[in-house]
């Protein structure tokens, strides 16, 4: 009986491999667990966009309330896709949406905001990409949920959709607001 079972071993091995492939291929390799989760926001110093108020210049600007911090750029196609969702979130008034434009020129950012609308509260801009490395960013858009104490509680990689907002971010923010 056990001898016959041996003949099923290759089948079992293939089944296990298939299992790995099916799970593995559906996962997005760009989605990395952020080591910054539950860590305080790194210190930073940024200029604001010229002529646009209010600016996001330092960590203190983010503290005291739960906020969304969205990394974007005028070069980023997926940001444009996310843009109307951010506008709706800002309009809803549950949480302020701050932005950091990176790898961008201030003129380009301003033109982009003029053309597509400006869903942000404060905006900081960074042309060196140093701030992106500080936050462990790999691309745009990426969005952090930061609590009242300035601790990173969630990182959304890729555009926020209405569904992600309703199912993940809004409940989390409501929880954090109560706490």
């Amino acid at each position, binding site marked *: 009986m056990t001898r016959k079972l041996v003949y099923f071993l290759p089948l079992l091995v293939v089944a296990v491999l298939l299992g790995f492939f099916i799970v593995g291929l559906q996962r997005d*390799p*760009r989605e*990395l*667990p*952020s*080591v*910054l989760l539950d860590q305080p926001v*790194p210190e930073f110093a940024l200029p604001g966009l010229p002529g646009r108020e209010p600016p996001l210049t330092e960590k203190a600007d983010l503290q005291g309330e739960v906020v969304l911090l969205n990394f974007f750029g005028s070069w980023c196609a997926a940001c444009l896709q996310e843009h109307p969702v951010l506008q709706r979130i800002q309009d809803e008034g549950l949480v302020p949406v701050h932005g950091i434009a990176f*790898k961008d020129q201030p003129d380009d950012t301003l033109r982009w905001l003029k053309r597509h609308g400006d869903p942000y509260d404060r905006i900081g801009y960074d042309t*060196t*990409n*140093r701030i*992106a*490395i*500080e*936050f*462990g960013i*790999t*691309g745009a858009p990426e969005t952090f949920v930061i609590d009242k104490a300035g601790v990173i509680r969630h990182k959304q990689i890729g555009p926020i959709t209405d569904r992600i907002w309703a199912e993940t971010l809004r409940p989390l923010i409501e929880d954090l607001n109560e706490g």
Partner: protein
Amino acid sequence: MTHSAPRHRIARASRLARAAGILLAALLAAGAPAGAVEPNEMLDDPALEARAREVSKGLRCVVCQNESIDESNAEMARDMRVLVRDRILAGDSNAEVEQYLVDRYGDYVLLKPPFKPTTYVLWFGPALILLGGAVAAVAYYRRKATGPAGPAPLSPDEEARLHALIGDDEAGPGAGTRTGRDQGGSA
């Protein structure tokens, strides 16, 4: 004429050899990873630049998955190369530069995974699988060496049937003639 012909041939042969050598060198050069470091990124101090190259080769370009920042042309990789050089200029050791990026991107940013409890499976897994295979192979050949157990002995029913078929002792009517003809044919 008779002299110039061979000399001409030798010259042509040496030209061919030289061309082949150049081609080979070019192919080898193309095969080696050239590195994506731009001259304007490099540090003036060759010793510091060499350290920067060494650190960069062990750091993963986080947008291209399987290239080091030293090889990648991605903008993100360029920014990280510049950062590595800035940290080195600021007096960081190689390990401190690596730790700086690990603090922000996790162990993922290291091309060589660190040796720690969460990666033991990664480090020992292949050796364990090899060991398992070796144990299985030894067991298999040991059993083969002692000889196979052989098929189970026949039951009385089977034995009776076998006797009937080969016509042992109480042979059937046709069995005898068939055996006789066979013997005749072979003789």
